[in-house]
Each structure stands twice: as structure tokens, then as C-alpha cells.
């Protein structure tokens, strides 16, 4: 945890109220989100007990499995969930836009919008991932036939759960993670996992949070006392009151989900949130296409090459997301300033017309001097960027200690037009306050992985065994 966030926690404790740790919103919040609160049956391997779901706060829909250990009821639940969720997911596969690829030599199409499914917490994400696993291989005929919507639901859930592992993706966000990205409470991260308590810190304060802790949980696990004293007799007696009981249990979390969405919507979106949502739309468009063309379920486990490639994609996404958040939000950038990976200063000298003609062709290389009082942990030769001019590179020529801090001499390249004279405003002028950082948005190409067909089987290459129609017998 960064010292800035830790300090915000200390401040929150002293104030008895959550404190902001972001000045902008770092994720896309959909105009028409789908909210889903799953509840699981204790002890069972991923047996659903209930779910509250829907796209409007005033219209929650409750699904209940009256005998959670009954296999047929479990798949009836899956079919009902599919009947509500899949049409929502597919409803964005309509209008498309053209995107230039290959430096404008080609175009591809992507959908102009994508779905967004909100869960209360990461436990909910894990539940859906397993539910996807338990349904995507089901066959619609044979000994244990299921409704055709069930395996399709499984594929969608597996896709969504996969995207939730990509840092910065907003197709399957969860409320606890989204809120703790923007607010620090005066309690521990473990306690923040309780959505009711977390919301209370943000909306009313510490005392309310302690009370909320004893309130209903946001699932997917239920409270053992609730299981033993309320749920067990209801299920044992096939009591019709089960529905109302579960409705009452889930309703506070349902309301909390929509309040969380409102809190997040009230923050202005960061500049780069839109481009990350573009990436989400790409992923959605590609999956819609996969379902239309081939539709095979995702394998149980990635082969070695696919796993390595995926790991690298995740690492790249994580690095990009960290940099983008810092560029979008001065409060996040402050963490890098504290660590010496960024510093703020004032331009004291500027030579905007400097041309370097030692090479084959003369090139425009203005120099500026920046005076700073902050910690500077950069060496000559390092390449810096400024969020104000992300396309421009600033190479460190020298760092000189002064009475009040450091003078950093920088040589600029890029982002100044194509002529030997810089475009107006593209070079910082004397007196301008500037933030410089070693973080860079530049694209980092990934390593090349062998094609799966050329990979030895010891590393997950052929033969590929797809047990797509296998059903687990129970």
C-alpha cells in the first residue's frame, strides 16, 4: 500500500469518515448496467441458493432455488438466469463502428456499446467463474440434458470472469473493488470487504459502519447463524416464506449496489477511461463473433503457450492501467512523486528553437531547465514524460543540486510538429509549472510466442483434446 493511501486511512479513522484517494473516476460506469447479487449454498460446490438481479433499481428480480441440492432445480435456476442475463448481454451486439487498423490500411468493426455486469464483491466474481465452469460444458441432449440457454450462459460467464482479471477492464466490475479504488476508510482492507460497512464509511461514518457489519452480508456466502436458524427450517419444510425471507435478506445489498453506482457516477471520469472501455468493446465484439462462428466453450485449462501469452497480456494491461491512472489523476500521480518517480517543478530556462545538426539530418531538440524542490530519482539519459504533453519525450541531460533542490536539464523530442520550428505551445515556456515522470504511456510490444500448432505437446501444443460435450455425473 502506498504511503498516500495509508495516510488517507489514518485521516479517515480520525475523521470517522472515508476519505477520497482519487480525484476522478477510474472506471467506466454504464448507463444501463446489469446488477447481479448471487447467493451460494454453504458447503456445496458452487450450488446457487438465490440471486437478485436486474437493470433498474426499482425493479429487482429474485431467483430462488427452493431445494439447492436438487440438480434439476439448480439447472432450472441456470436457465432462468440465462433467460434474463443473456438477452442483456446480446442486446449490445447491434450497431457497429469502423476502427482503422494496420495504420489505416484496413478497418475492422466493433460494437458501439458493450454490457456491464455489476457484482457486490470478488467472492461474487469467483462464484460466477465456477458457475460458468459448471454450466458451459453441459450438453443439451444425452443422459442429463439441460436447457440450451444453460451452456451459452456458462460461456458468457466464463468470458466475463476472464475479463475481470484484466486490470482496468469494466465489463464485470464489483462494487467493493470499485469503491475502494476511490475511497479509503478508517478500517482494514479485510473489513472493507463487507459492502454494507464500506458504504457506511463513505455515506455516514464509522459508527454506522460498525452497525452495518452486523447487517446482512452481500454474498455469495451466507451467515452460518442465518443458515442454521432461518434457512435450514425453511428449506426443510419447503416453506413458501423462503422467497420473502431471501428477498428481505438481499434487498439492502441491492439498494447498496445502486447507491455505490450513484457515488461513482458523481465523480468525473478520467480522460483515459474511455479508451479502456474501447478495449472492453473490442473484447466483447470479438467474443460475440466467436460465439457466432465457432462457439466452442473455453477449455478447462489454458495450454502452456496460451497461459504464458495471457499472463503477458495481463502484465501489459496492469502496467498500462497504472500509468493511465497516474496520468489521469494528480492524486494517483502524487504516489509516484512521493516515491521519486515523478516530480513537479517550474521551468527556469527554455531554448525552444534549439536544433541538433550533428546527425545526418538536422532535428529539432529544444532544451528546458526545470527547478524542483521535490525528491528526484532520475539519472542523466533517462527518458521522462509530462501528462500535459504525453506525446513528447524529455531526455535528462543533467541533474544539478541547488540550494533549494535540483535543476534538471531536459532535451525534448516529439510532439512539436514536423517542422524545424516548434508548434506554438508545444514547448514549455519559462515560468510554467510542469510535472515530469519516468512513467510512460508508450506501447511496449510483447514477446513473440510460438504458434500453438508448432508447440511441442509438453508445452500444451497439439494434440488438443476438447472435452466439449463431457458432463459431470452426479
Amino acid at each position, binding site marked *: 500500500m502506498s504511503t498516500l493511501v*495509508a495516510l488517507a486511512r489514518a485521516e479517515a*479513522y*480520525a475523521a470517522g469518515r472515508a476519505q477520497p484517494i482519487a*480525484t476522478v473516476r477510474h472506471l467506466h460506469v454504464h448507463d444501463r448496467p446489469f446488477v447481479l447479487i448471487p447467493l451460494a449454498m454453504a458447503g*456445496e460446490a458452487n450450488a446457487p441458493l438465490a440471486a437478485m438481479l436486474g437493470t433498474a433499481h426499482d425493479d429487482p428480480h429474485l431467483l430462488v432455488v427452493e431445494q439447492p441440492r436438487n440438480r434439476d432445480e439448480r439447472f432450472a435456476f441456470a436457465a432462468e438466469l440465462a433467460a434474463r442475463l443473456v438477452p442483456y448481454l446480446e442486446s449490445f451486439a447491434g450497431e457497429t463502428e469502423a476502427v482503422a487498423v494496420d495504420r489505416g490500411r484496413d478497418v475492422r468493426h466493433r460494437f458501439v456499446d458493450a454490457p456491464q455486469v455489476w457484482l457486490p464483491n470478488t467472492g461474487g466474481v469467483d462464484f460466477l467463474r465456477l458457475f460458468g465452469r459448471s454450466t458451459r460444458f453441459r450438453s443439451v441432449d444425452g443422459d442429463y440434458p439441460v436447457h440450451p440457454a444453460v451452456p451459452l450462459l456458462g460461456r458468457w460467464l466464463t468470458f466475463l470472469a476472464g475479463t475481470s482479471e484484466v486490470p482496468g477492464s469494466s465489463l464485470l466490475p464489483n462494487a467493493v473493488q470499485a469503491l475502494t479504488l476511490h475511497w479509503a476508510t478508517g*478500517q482494514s482492507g479485510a473489513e472493507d470487504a463487507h459492502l454494507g460497512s464500506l458504504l457506511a464509511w463513505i455515506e455516514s461514518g464509522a459508527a454506522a459502519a460498525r452497525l452495518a457489519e452486523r447487517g446482512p452480508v452481500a454474498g455469495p456466502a451466507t451467515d452460518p447463524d442465518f443458515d442454521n436458524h432461518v*434457512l435450514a427450517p425453511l428449506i426443510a419444510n419447503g416453506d413458501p416464506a423462503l422467497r420473502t425471507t431471501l428477498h428481505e435478506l438481499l434487498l439492502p445489498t441491492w439498494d447498496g449496489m445502486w447507491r455505490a453506482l450513484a457515488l461513482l457516477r458523481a465523480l468525473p471520469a478520467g480522460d483515459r477511461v474511455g479508451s479502456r472501455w474501447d478495449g472492453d468493446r473490442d473484447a466483447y465484439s470479438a467474443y460475440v463473433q466467436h460465439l457466432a462462428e465457432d462457439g466452442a466453450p473455453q477449455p478447462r485449462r489454458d495450454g502452456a503457450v496460451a497461459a504464458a501469452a495471457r499472463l503477458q497480456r495481463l502484465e501489459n494491461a496492469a502496467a498500462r492501467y497504472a500509468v493511465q491512472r497516474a496520468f489521469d489523476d494528480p492524486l494517483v500521480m502524487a504516489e509516484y512523486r*512521493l516515491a521519486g518517480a515523478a516530480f513537479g517543478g517550474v521551468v527556469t530556462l527554455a531554448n525552444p528553437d534549439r536544433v541538433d545538426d550533428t546527425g545526418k539530418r538536422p532535428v529539432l531538440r529544444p532544451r528546458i531547465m526545470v527547478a524542483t524542490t521535490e525528491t528526484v530519482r532520475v539519472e542523466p539519459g533517462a527518458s521522462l514524460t509530462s501528462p500535459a504533453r504525453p506525446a513528447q519525450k524529455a531526455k535528462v541531460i543533467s541533474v544539478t543540486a541547488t540550494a533549494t533542490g535540483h535543476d534538471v536539464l531536459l532535451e525534448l523530442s516529439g510532439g512539436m510538429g514536423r517542422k524545424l520550428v516548434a508548434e506554438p505551445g508545444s514547448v514549455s515556456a519559462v515560468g510554467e509549472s510542469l510535472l515530469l515522470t519516468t512513467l510512460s504511456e508508450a506501447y511496449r510490444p510483447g514477446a513473440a510466442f510460438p504458434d500453438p500448432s508448432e508447440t511441442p505437446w509438453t508445452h500444451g501444443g497439439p494434440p488438443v483434446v476438447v472435452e466439449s460435450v463431457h458432463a*459431470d*455425473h452426479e
Partner: protein
Amino acid sequence: MSLDRLRGTTPAKRHNARTIAALTGNPGCSRRAVLDAAGIDKVKLATRIGFPGSFGQSRFALARGNAFEAMLKADDCALLRSVLDVGVVDYHDLGADSDDTLGARHGRTLSLLGSARPALVDHPLLTLEVAGQTVFLEPDLIAFQSEGRLRVVEIKSFAIVDGQADSAAVSGAAVQAAVYVLALRALLGDDRVSHEVVLVCPSNFSLQPVAVVLDVRKQLSTLRRQLSRLSSVSSLIAGLPSFVSFDLSLSPSDLISSLTAIEARYVPECLSSCEMSVYCRSEAAGSTAALGRSVRESLGGIEEVSTVLDLARGAVAPDPGQAEAAALLRQAARLRDEALP
């Protein structure tokens, strides 16, 4: 002061693998070490002083666990034998019994396991040294003996899906299995008992059992360390003031003064591992440790939230040892102020 004296008229709580495994939870905490060594019922104590926690187990989970175990053991352990691939060996169930026959069951356990005959031995009664006392373990395990070597077989009802299981559940099972290995080794000698234990769980979304082997050497050394720490608890207890007692017939305020006489080390992880946590959390309010280990570290190890804020605002001069942390905190506060509208 003796352990029994600390407990007063309340009977000692019997240990099982779960309570022993829990000893590894927060090894730095003296309060917990004393309470556990003396066999204090922490659930009752916490309730008595008005800080009850929620440490119950869902009966659905228990029912499924029992159903899975019954299924494995039906028809003379047919399914268990096939998943363990053990062929035809004897099965002995030493059963359950009351306090006064424990010794006899322990004797039968010793003779059965000592004979080195291939067999599945269910519900053996083991003992372990805890805080200088020999406690009976109420084990729920099967020891499989073959070629003179014993393996602990543990039946758990959490699912293994595509070769993966909930990591918290697996590590919990590994520590409990390590407790059994330790107790069996104490009985028969180290080389007779394997450090590899067999976990039998339902696979994927069915009740089909699958067996996996876990190496518990790491858990064994953690346990040994913690148990040896507990044995030194007697000197800690000897130094306690004479009023300290956890006799549950005492008033809550007396019990609380007894608790405050023993140093605690609250961390948020206590909330899921120690029955005293609701009380200890309220006692630790205002400390940076209560916000989490990483928060405390990021705040330069300063103990109190109020000190952190005073240093960050420059309201107090830092002690010599705090100079570096104070400079960082002041800088952090300045950057926060600058960035916030």
C-alpha cells in the same frame, strides 16, 4: 501461578486438530498463547465480556461433510479404498468414547499402529504436548499403514475443480493434517510417519472423490515452532499478577482487567482466526496495526494514528527514530493537500 488456577472452576476445553492448527494463527500474541495454553473457552469468554464473535459453522456445510464421509466409508470403505488404491487391507474403526475411556482407546490405537500391519485405522486417539501438558486429540482421520509407514488421510468436503481448490481451504487442511502427523510421530517416531498426507475431496461439481497428495513439511515446522513457544508460556504465566483469572464466574469487568494484564498483538487477520478478535479490535482502536500490517508499514511503523497525523501536519517534533518517517509523512500530506480540490 498455574494454568489450572487461571481457568478457575471452568473445565478445560478439549483440543482438536482445528484448535491446535489455530495456534499458528497469530504466533506473536501472548494473550492468545496464555488463553490457549490454559484451555480457556475463548468463545464463552468473549461472550461473557460482551464481545461475542460469529464463529459458527453452517449446518449445511456440516451435513455435506458428513454425507461425503459416509459415502466414502459405506460398504467397508469401498469407495475410499478405490480412490486411495489400497486394495484389500483391514479397516479398524476405533470409534468415539467418553472422557473416562480415552486412555483405553489410546492404548488400542498404540497397539494397532505399533504393529506395522497394513491397515486403515479410523478415529485413532492421539496425544500431543501442548504447553507442557498432554492433551488428547479428537482426531477425525484415517491413518493408512503400508510397508511399515503411516500416511495421514484427511477427508474434506470442499471441491477440487479442474485440479484447483480454494487456497484458504487447502492451507487449512494442510495445517490440520500436519497436527496429526506431529501427534503420530510423537507416538511412533519420526521415520514411521510420512510428511506427505493424502487429501480426499469431492471433484468438480459431483461427489466423486479424488485423492491428492500434500507435502506438509512447512506446516510441520511452523507448528513445532509455535508449540515450543507455548511451552515457554509457563514463565510468562508465572509473571502475571495474582488477580489474573479467567474463571467465567467472575464479573465481566474483572475478566477484562485480567485480559488487559496480558499483552495482545491485534491484526485484522485475527477477525477470521481468533475468537477474542471483536474485543481485541476495540482495544486496538486508534492503532495503525488495526488498519492492517501494510498500512502500518507504509506509515513508517508509527504505532498510533494520532501520532501519524501529528507528524504529518508537523504538529509535533519527531523522536530521533521517527525522523525519516516524519519527513515522508509531511511530504505525503503536502502532496495530498495539493492534489485534492
